[in-house]
């Protein structure tokens, strides 16, 4: 298929987030466009950005455990883990108090699948998920 569209790419106005003087492109739901631009300072800025979810997330050590796990998983496998697998892995690593859905929702009220992934710099989930 010829995809030589009449669509202008450069005119695209997407939201941005500024970290250390550098502007990073986000998608329309606040997910980082380029997952490789992520570092822990970017995560901090994404957590404080309430334009998309309506609420800031104060990152504690507990949040970081989830964010780092998601990040590692994504880099290795190319996707965010299924929520059940995330719960299971949390249980394995940090015990049953942390390996349950309620705990994860308490940390990420907008939903671990969405908000934790956004803060971890993962792209928005695609496909039939």
């Amino acid at each position: 298929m010829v995809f030589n569209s009449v669509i202008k790419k450069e005119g695209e106005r997407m939201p941005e987030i500024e970290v250390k003087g550098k502007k990073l492109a986000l998608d329309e739901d606040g997910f980082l466009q380029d997952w490789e631009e992520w570092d822990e300072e970017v995560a901090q800025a994404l957590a404080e950005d309430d334009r998309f979810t309506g609420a800031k997330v104060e990152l504690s050590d507990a949040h970081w455990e989830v964010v780092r796990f998601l990040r590692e998983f994504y880099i290795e496998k190319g996707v965010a883990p299924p929520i059940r697998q995330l719960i299971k892995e949390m249980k394995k690593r940090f015990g049953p108090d942390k390996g349950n859905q309620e705990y994860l929702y308490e940390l990420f009220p907008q939903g671990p699948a969405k908000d934790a992934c956004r803060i971890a710099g993962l792209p928005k989930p695609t496909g039939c998920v």
Partner: protein
Amino acid sequence: MSKDDTRLQDISKPLNEQLVKIRFEDLMPLPAPFKGPEDEPPLTDPKPDWKKDYVTELDGYIGIDMPMPKNGVEEKELVQKFLNGLKKLLSENNNWEFLQPLMLSFEYCAQCQTCSDACPVYLSSGKKEIYRPTYRAEIVRRIIKKYLTKSGKIFGKFVGADIELNANTVLRLAEDAYRCTLCRRCAQRCPIGVDNGLITHEIRKLFSAELGIAPKPLHELGTVQHLEKGSSTGLTPEGFADIIEFIEDDIEEKIGKRIKIPVDEKGADILLIHNAGEYLSWPENPAAFAILFEEAGLSWTLSSEMVGYDGVNYGVWYDDVQLARVALKHAEIARKLDVNKIVIGECGHAHKAITIIADRVFHDEYNIPRESCLTLLWDLYRKGRFNLDPDKNDFPVTLHDPCNVVRLMGIVEPQRKILRAIAPQFREMSPNGVYNYCCGGGSGFAIMQSMNFPEFRNKLSARMKVKQVLEAFSDCISPDINKYFCLPCSNCKGATRDAFVHYGIWDKCRIIYSGLVELMVNAMVDLEEPFVEWEWH
């Protein structure tokens, strides 16, 4: 309900005007426990920022989340490309795959409007003209008449050639092609078989192939990602292997027995292909398949090859070339594994893509038999291959009929026969079978999550299904009673999950949604604990 006097010609109006605005009083009312606007999220306006790059001037919703050439830029090119595409759509060489049914639908529609009352989007919206199944079809028909026929060029509006083709027409039409779920209920209702769903599909195809316009979740993040990374979810072969191991662990935990899920087993009888969304969002579904196939002693395998572990084929909604690329890859993998047949898991559009549409490109060694999981499951059940106790499923159950499996392919009874046997409180929703309504997520809507498109889906395309489910459970709607909405299709599950969250169905009514195989495993005599988990996810 406010009267809508939008005309066909309005599609060409300048872009400073939004043709239709949906208000709450227009929406089809929902049954109990819904009483009024306070029971559901309000309708919202598009953000002013969006107007610069996207087409909000149809109904305010944005289905095509790629910037469009608005405000004078490249407008001529847009119109010219549209016309070129239209010519190709009508030529044997360029559109051998769909030309005949397309022409029949173009030529024989008598404008009786019987189809309008069959359309869930049209009805849910309070009968807005732009959603009428004939609206987009008639616009294209008149454009063809005016610009591509002699009589239209000379006599213009006297022969019904009265649609002005300008950039506004093209841009609004592109959006309107993404307001129909391609459920084809209109085609079924038509007394002479005119298929306005097909016409919508062909308009989408024109936009994709000729103008490069398609929603990102379908093209860039859909078929392109599917072919390049292995799955439209982004799942890689490594990730797939990891999840299979996780599912094996999960099965062991739940049923106390370890099952080795066969992957890449050459010479197996069956290659089972799931929608990869199952692995990521509903891993209990592939788990239930593995348990049942193991119990039935089948010779089967999954594929871990790129594309082979994701049965989706988004091309079926918008682009024949992309469809063929993915379908041929599926067939190639089955051929290499030397299986006797491909069985498609609980995914409606994958059924349509690989069994029906791909039949036109599967020749010779590629023409491997394909079967629905539903007919296979019934056959196994009928032959007594499972030991099931219906008492374990003694809760209210209703069933959704995925359009592509049921209306399109006519697979109506197998899933019902199973449910009647294993779910004592099974009740049909109305209408059902081939007369079903779409889940609201058909044709890609379930995965189109950009900007305000989810609001369109939840309020307009999925509203009829929500109504049907509430009515089916009206005798037990109280949240004190757990109820099971059986949806044998990943896409339908995705749309239902979002709609149920939108309307707060879990808290208000305690209805979970899940597939057919989960309910079968839940009834297995050997299982000590229930397989179905009564929690929202």
